[in-house]
C-alpha cells in the first residue's frame, strides 16, 4: 500500500481481511484513509457508512455524509443516503428537508418522491403525500413504481374512485402491466 497508495484492489482485499478477522476499528481507519486519498470514491463512503450502522454508530454515519456534503454540495446520492439514515433514526424533519433538496436537484428521482411521501404520511399529512406522489408520476408517467403506493394511500383516505381513476391512468401508460388490470378490477368490484 505504501508503494501503490492508489491501488484500490489492495485496499479492498485488506478491508475484507480485517473484517473477517473482526478488526472493525482497523477496517474503519482504513476506510477513512481511502477516503482521504480518493475523495471521489463513493463506494468507500457508502461501505463505511454501512459498517458504522452495523456497529450501531448511526451518528458517526450521519456525520460522515454531512462531511461528504460539505465537500460536494451537489452530490445527490449523498443527500439520498443521508436522508435514508435520518429516516431510520426517526429524524423526520431533517430527512424531509433533505428529500426536498434531492427532488429539487433531481426532479426525476422517483424513489425520493416515494420516500418523502411516506415520511409525510408518517407526519399525518396524507394530502401533501398524495400531491407529491402525483408530482412524481407526472415526472415519469411510464414508471410504474409510484402508482401502487399512491393508490394504497387513496384507499386509506377512502378515495376509492380516485384510486380507480389512477389505475385507469396507469393502464393507459403501461398497457402491458397485468397487476394494474387486476387491481383496477378488484377495486371496481369493491364498489
Amino acid at each position, binding site marked *: 500500500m505504501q508503494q501503490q497508495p492508489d491501488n484500490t484492489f489492495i485496499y479492498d482485499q485488506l478491508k475484507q481481511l480485517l473484517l473477517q478477522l473482526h478488526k472493525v476499528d482497523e477496517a474503519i481507519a482504513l476506510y477513512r484513509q481511502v477516503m482521504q486519498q480518493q475523495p471521489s470514491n463513493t463506494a468507500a463512503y457508502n461501505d463505511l457508512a454501512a459498517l458504522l450502522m452495523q456497529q450501531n454508530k448511526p451518528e458517526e454515519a450521519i456525520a460522515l455524509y454531512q462531511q461528504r456534503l460539505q465537500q460536494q454540495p451537489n452530490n445527490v446520492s449523498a443527500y439520498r443516503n443521508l436522508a435514508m439514515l435520518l429516516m431510520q433514526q426517526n429524524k423526520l424533519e431533517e430527512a424531509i428537508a433533505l428529500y426536498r433538496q434531492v427532488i429539487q436537484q433531481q426532479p426525476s428521482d422517483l424513489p425520493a418522491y416515494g420516500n418523502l411521501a411516506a415520511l409525510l404520511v408518517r407526519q399525518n399529512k396524507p394530502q401533501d403525500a398524495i400531491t407529491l406522489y402525483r408530482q412524481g408520476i407526472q415526472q415519469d408517467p411510464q414508471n410504474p413504481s409510484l402508482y401502487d403506493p399512491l393508490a394504497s394511500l387513496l384507499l386509506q383516505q377512502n378515495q376509492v374512485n380516485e384510486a380507480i381513476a389512477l389505475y385507469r391512468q396507469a*393502464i393507459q401508460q403501461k398497457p402491458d402491466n397485468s397487476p394494474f*388490470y387486476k387491481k383496477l378490477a*378488484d377495486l371496481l368490484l369493491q364498489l
Partner: protein
Amino acid sequence: MLQRRKTAEAIAAYRKVIELNPEGVEGYLALGNALMLGLPSESQLTEALGLYHQALQLEPTSALAYTGLGNVLRQQQKLEDAIAAYWQALRLDPHSDGAYQQLSSLLLLLHNTDAVIALYRHALQQRLATNAFFYTQMDRFLQQQNQLETLTSLYREGIEQYSAVPPQAGKEHFKQHFYGQLAQLFLEQKQPEKAIALY
C-alpha cells in the same frame, strides 16, 4: 346500471390479466369469481367452470379453485359434486373460510344431518371459524333435528378445543359460545345443577 358497467369493466380487466399472464392462476380465479357475481347466466356458469378447471391445471392444490368450482356446481344444481368440491377445498386448505361458509349453508339447505355434524367437528378440530355465527346456524339446525346428545358432545369438544387456544388469539368468545349453549341445553333438559356446575 352503473354497477353493471363496473362489473363489465372489471371482467374485461381480468380477461386482460389472463391474456398478459396466462401462467398466473389468480387471473382465472378472479375472472371466474367475477362471472359468478349476481345471477350468472348459463354461459357465464360454463365459462367460470372452465376457468376454475384451468386454474386447477396450473395449481392442482388451489383450495380457492375448488371453492369456485363448488359454487358453479351448486348453481348448476349438481349438489353432490358441489359438496365434494367444497370438501376438497377444505382438505387442501383447512383455513378456507369461504369453503366452510358455502359448504355449511348447502348442507343445512339439504338437511344433511350427518354431513353437518362432520363439518361441525372438522371446524372444531381446526378451530378456524371466523365467527360464532357459523356454529350458531348449525346449532339451530341440530336442535331442530333433536340431535341433543350429539350437540352436548360437540359443545364439550368446542370448550376443550377453544380452551387450548391462548387468550391473545382473540377466540375467547367461541369458548363462551359453547359454555352458553351447553348450559342452555342443560336447562332445557331440566338439569339446572349441571348448568350451574359448568360455571
